[in-house]
């Protein structure tokens, strides 16, 4: 890995996004629209809105970044640029971290805007700081990036890539504790939920929602999410092959 190559790769990926203003607009606007929708859905039930909006602030960046990354990486493969990059001094980690950092930065903007709107416009209340919500949301987005990079290795076409979304994201969303509290699930479902990283980020967000100060559980959960990011990136590097058939 080389800092210079990593830097120019990040700049290149951001540059590609910059030429696609519609995508940037959607990244920033879509979560805000969805939060707005939630606000009107739970009109008059502020506490329910607080809980669901808080969870969604973590879930949206995860899903959106997962999709964007898996498509972006698939495009590297199908356009031949990946093959060409592997004949240059670019390292696998330059590429993976390049995507991680570039899309992580975009996710930070997305999470900040969505959290700010939820907090200041719709008066979403959290016992803890809204900035902790942003930090956890960004960690979630980076998790989406890392899983997206990994999953793109198993997709040959865009059709396959988009279908990893329901495979990877939806079970995590269903089992994260939003629909059914995790301790009320059947034992085997709880066990599944225990190995899904999104369960921990939702728990961390709930901790911020209910405690004025950051708790030990919240820090532990955040570390677990970051551990999952590193694991997914390592697996991503292992599935990325310089030589292909």
């Amino acid at each position, binding site marked *: 890995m080389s800092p210079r190559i990593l830097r120019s790769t990040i700049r290149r990926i951001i540059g*590609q996004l910059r030429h696609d203003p519609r995508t940037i607009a959607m990244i920033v606007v879509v979560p805000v629209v969805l939060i707005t929708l939630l606000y009107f859905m739970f009109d008059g039930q502020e506490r329910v809105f607080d809980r669901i909006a808080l969870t969604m602030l973590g879930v949206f960046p995860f899903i959106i970044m997962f999709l964007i990354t898996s498509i972006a990486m698939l495009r590297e493969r199908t356009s*031949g640029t990946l*093959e060409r990059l592997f004949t240059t*001094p670019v390292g696998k980690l330059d590429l993976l971290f390049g995507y991680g950092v570039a899309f992580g930065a975009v996710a930070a903007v997305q999470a900040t805007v969505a959290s700010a709107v939820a907090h200041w416009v719709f008066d979403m209340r959290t016992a803890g700081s809204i900035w902790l919500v942003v930090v956890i949301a960004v960690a979630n987005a980076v998790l989406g990036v890392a899983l997206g990079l990994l999953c793109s290795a198993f997709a040959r076409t865009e059709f396959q890539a988009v279908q990893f979304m329901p495979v990877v994201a939806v079970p995590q969303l269903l089992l994260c504790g939003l629909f059914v509290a995790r301790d009320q699930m059947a034992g085997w479902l709880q066990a599944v939920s225990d190995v899904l990283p999104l369960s921990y980020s939702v728990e961390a967000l709930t901790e911020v929602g209910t405690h004025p100060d950051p708790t030990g559980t919240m820090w532990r959960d955040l570390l677990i999410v970051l551990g999952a990011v590193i694991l997914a990136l390592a697996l991503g590097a292992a599935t990325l092959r*310089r*030589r292909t*058939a």
Partner: protein
Amino acid sequence: METAIEVRDLVVKRGKRIVLDGFDCAIHRGSITGLLGPSGSGKTTLMRAIVGVQRVASGTVTVLGEPAGSAPLRHKVGYLTQSPSVYNDLTGRENARYFASLYGLGKAAADEALEAVGLLDAADQLVLNMSGGQQSRASLACAIVSRPEILVLDEPTVGQDPVLRDELWERFRGFAADGATVLVSSHVMDEANRCDRLLLIREGALIADDTPVAVKGSAGTDDLDQAFLNLIRAHEEKVAA
């Protein structure tokens, strides 16, 4: 003459099909070698093996004394894929600058490469909005931006204007004169005449490996197209016998 690329007993399989079956060849440093053969003959596979992105079943490919694809070679090899492999959502200049930066080179190197392929005027267009010929030239600019010692070009002149094609060949000649080893695949015979040496492959086997003059001489004709036809027939008779 010094050997820059040496392929020994190379076997490549794609699925169940054997694309190259015990392929041998040597390519000289500082020369332009033309790789000719019909579509599906194994040209691209051989080029991918030389730049180190092709999974091979057995055999060796040695480039400048190193195994193909090894880390030190990645600073010395430039590869142009058959279909343009540049970022569609970047401009030509941004693409060239990105690839230049991978070798620690700056804007000057990128602009020089764009000028060499005649793309300076259209350099600030998104690749997406370029014509097919411009897209291939943007891709070519990224392959030559580091002035590599080994330049592997898979059909670099397809769809280009004749004047430009002539200029591109002058460039390749210039690179070779500066000591670079250029391997160019093509199926345009008038281009074959501009190479120092020709490799003709068909169905994964090397049918001819000689200078254009010698290829024509051994086939007993002055026309390269006819020469290749004669050589292929002679080869088939030899195989059948």
